[in-house]
């Protein structure tokens, strides 16, 4: 799932704007407000239909986890659906002591299981039984999926959440007369979440991991590729965590992470749709204004040392061949990030893009090919080209053809017409992004969190317009080189056996 999100973000990085009526429209239409507790609010009034999208984004994601916390941001995303002291329970006072007992037994069990073969199977069995009984007892007080029940009854749509390297986002759309419901539920979720049913949910996340990474060869390649690309920086850790990471997470650890960061000063909210901005600000102040701030998220101190030579990663899989080629690159606000946006569009945007034309249509080496930036944006990341070889061609042939196109970027200046086509595409995208209230809420929260201001949305195209053919050549020569490269590929089982 995460790579799909990464790709969406990569696509979103292309959305932009400049001096057209629309862009000015967006600039004038966004209303900003910061609460005293540090929470940032972005509002856009739009009356196309009586609906509203509300997105909450926390500036904390998997890069902010310590090594013994890997997977916790994502597991917390699940846990925050479990309710509060008032929602999701019929009697919190009676439930609370049981939750404490569960935690004691679960920690003992986790510890004993972590001993592996040296653990005591009799004790494990005893603790498992005890845990099951306690969970059953606590379960009597659980009101299942109460957030979802209430939202759904009121016509909520797209109720969901996602976790990335950079942040965690909770989203919903509602009929616009129900906005107060969102404020009541979300302020309660921010103020007094209760991580009930933690250990069943931990099993659910293990199933999620099997589903998205272990049963899908492409998922396996993706996480192996990323983990190999980064020696030091947590950017290389899987968002969901490795299986043994998830197995060893406890509610105590999750609560400590929660209390550190899930506070209004680390939250950005976008509300887009059929709203009255003044009344909406008053509503948000009333519900969220009293929630105390927490600690700001400290910067990740780890720095990725410069790569000392090409890295090559093989995954043997029960599937056809796949290929990924990545290069380390800086992230925004570094100007080279912007030039990579141009390179990405030159190489892979549409049927006329260089990689599609050359590898899909002319040489017919691949059935599909794409380029994107991943896996996150707050810290230096990777420019990645991903291709599906077409039989009988091998990954090696595809790789050589990709390098041929990358060499062209270094040796030939990009034509003015290609640059103009990119600006035209950005002009279209800036209008299109306004068509969906959810899409606009996503862009506003993403850019506020990653670029430091949503205004990047209205500056990006102007900046791209300043990119020259020499810029593209310089950046290609600097980063798209062998020593800076990671190559990952799936070798089909049958081929590996030979």
């Amino acid at each position, binding site marked *: 799932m995460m790579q799909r999100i990464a790709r969406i973000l990569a696509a979103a990085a292309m959305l932009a704007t400049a001096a057209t009526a629309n862009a000015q429209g967006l600039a004038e239409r966004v209303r900003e407000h910061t609460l005293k507790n540090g929470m940032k609010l972005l509002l856009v009034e739009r009356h196309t239909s009586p609906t509203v999208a509300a997105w909450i984004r926390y500036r904390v994601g998997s890069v902010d986890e310590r090594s013994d916390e890997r997977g916790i941001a994502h597991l917390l995303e699940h846990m925050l659906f479990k309710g509060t002291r008032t929602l999701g329970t019929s009697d919190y006072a009676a439930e609370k002591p049981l939750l404490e007992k569960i935690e004691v037994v679960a920690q003992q069990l986790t510890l004993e299981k972590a001993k592996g073969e040296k653990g005591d199977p009799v004790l494990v069995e005893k603790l498992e039984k005890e845990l099951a009984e306690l969970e059953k007892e606590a379960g009597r007080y659980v009101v*299942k999926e109460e957030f979802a029940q209430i939202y759904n009854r009121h016509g909520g749509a797209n109720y969901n959440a996602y976790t990335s390297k950079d942040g965690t986002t909770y989203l919903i759309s509602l009929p616009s007369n129900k906005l107060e419901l969102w404020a009541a539920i979300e302020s*309660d979720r921010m103020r007094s979440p209760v991580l009930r049913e933690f250990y069943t949910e931990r099993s659910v996340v293990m199933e999620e991991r*099997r589903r998205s990474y272990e049963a899908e060869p492409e998922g396996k390649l993706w996480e192996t590729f990323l983990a190999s690309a980064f020696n030091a920086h947590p950017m290389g850790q899987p968002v969901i965590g490795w299986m043994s990471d998830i197995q060893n997470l406890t509610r105590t650890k999750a609560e400590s992470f929660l209390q550190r960061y899930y506070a209004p000063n680390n939250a950005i909210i976008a509300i887009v749709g059929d709203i009255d901005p003044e009344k909406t600000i008053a509503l948000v102040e009333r*519900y969220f204004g009293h929630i105390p701030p927490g600690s700001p998220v400290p910067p990740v101190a780890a720095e990725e040392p410069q790569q000392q030579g090409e890295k090559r990663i093989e995954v043997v899989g029960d599937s056809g061949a796949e290929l990924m080629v990545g290069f380390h690159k800086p992230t925004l606000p570094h100007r080279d990030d912007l030039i990579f946006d141009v390179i990405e569009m030159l190489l892979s945007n549409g049927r*006329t893009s260089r990689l599609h034309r050359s590898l899909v249509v002319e040489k017919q080496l691949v059935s599909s090919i794409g380029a994107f930036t991943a896996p996150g944006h707050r810290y230096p990341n990777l420019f990645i080209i991903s291709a599906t070889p077409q*039989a009988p061609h091998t990954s090696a042939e595809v790789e050589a053809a990709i390098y041929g196109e990358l060499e062209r970027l270094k040796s030939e200046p990009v034509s003015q017409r290609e640059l103009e086509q990119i600006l035209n595409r950005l002009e279209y995208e800036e209008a299109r992004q306004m068509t969906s209230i959810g899409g606009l809420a996503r862009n506003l929260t993403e850019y506020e969190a990653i670029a430091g201001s949503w205004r990047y949305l209205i500056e990006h195209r102007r900046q791209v317009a300043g990119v020259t053919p020499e810029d593209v050549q310089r950046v290609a020569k600097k980063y798209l080189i062998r020593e800076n490269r990671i190559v990952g590929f799936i070798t089909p089982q049958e081929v590996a056996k030979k």
Partner: protein
Amino acid sequence: MRCMFRFAILTTLILSLAACATTPWTVDPRKLTFPPLDFTIPKSERVTLSNGMVVYLLEDHELPLVNVTAYIRTGSIYEPEELAGLAGITGAVLRSGGTVSLSPEELDAELEFMASGVESGIGDDLGNVSMYTLKKNLDRTMSLFAEVITAPAFSDARFELARKNTLEAIRRQNDDPKGIAGREIRRSLYAGHPLGRVATSETVQRIGRDDMIAFYKRFYRPQGMILAVSGDFDSAEMKSRLEKLFGGWRPAGEPLPAVAEPLPTPRREVLFAQKQVSQSVVRMGHLGVEKNNPDQYAIRVMDYILGGGFTSRLTQEIRSNQGLAYHAGSRFDIGRRFPGLFIAETETKAASTARAISLMEEIIAGMTKEPVSTEELLLAKESIINSFIFGFAKADSVVNQQARLEFYGFPDGYLENFRANIARVTRDDVLRVSRKYLRPDLLSVMVVGDGKKFDKPLTTFGPVREIRLETAK
């Protein structure tokens, strides 16, 4: 603010029993009330061109964009069995193969320079050609859109490319366990019907360019075709533009061939495909109903309670209570033209495969045993009724919604009466339709996974037919 906050914390601690409390800022979301929502279904204009094409139009001047979608009466249900894959290739090459006036490369270059798009595809019972453009490029993009529909060139080279890509997709069709399971259960439930067919490398090798052109000529014509147009344009101008672009296009056509109704499978099948993966994919299902069935509203409510989303019985038991899966749910598809499928699905670790199947059977059968609770009924009905509005959030959705209703022949007033029809559903109705349309005894099961690691052999559920998977080389 600060003092108030301390007071609030204290209150919560003391009153945690009655936390639906009365502090100034704690409002119980369960007890909120709301002003009524002002909403009427937006209407688009319907006109007929001189050649018989139907057009739905809806202006929306907020953004300088125009979208058009054409609905064409064709589909893979009409392709000859020995040429399975023909419809998909025709749909792709209609766009990729250029037009009589522009080579494929010229067409791509001109559209992409304007940041406009034209796309085309053919599904089971429908063909689409769609376009998007900035208003300033409307004229040129629309004429290219019309050319793709009325004068495609089907370039030989692009035909070969599309065929190669289709063969590659077939070569890789067993890479993804979920893809295998979905395909194979559909094949089994629609056995003997065009909806149950899948293209193979043999059928695709057999397809020639002439077959594709003949397929296009047979189905692409103004009679029965519907256009949905939305965005920043003037309706009067748009009508005359469409008349100019399409009015003279009058190819002859023969009536659409009849396609038989699919028949329910006489007995359940237990299907298994071996794949060395840690998680099994489970799909269970049988044939369902189509849109003219008057019980469809009660079925929708039943489906919501059984398998629709976070609050459903399947998700709550399999995911939330037992932690057996990340995803568990069902969908009772109300077919638009033919009976749809009822499919329940989950993925679970190999060692809980049989347990998950038994649980799903039990939960499905549970729907037929006693009435659902009043709370479940209320939640399902309110959710369906109150989220109805999201089908109309954009002009583009409104106009396409209306085009589709006509294309598939939904009865007049279908949308207008939809919410009232859901509101009328009772607990007795849900029990009645559960008993009539959920057939636990006929549920076929498809499992992809590592058979040796299952908790119980699949023969527990009946005689097993194994599907041998060929994998990509």
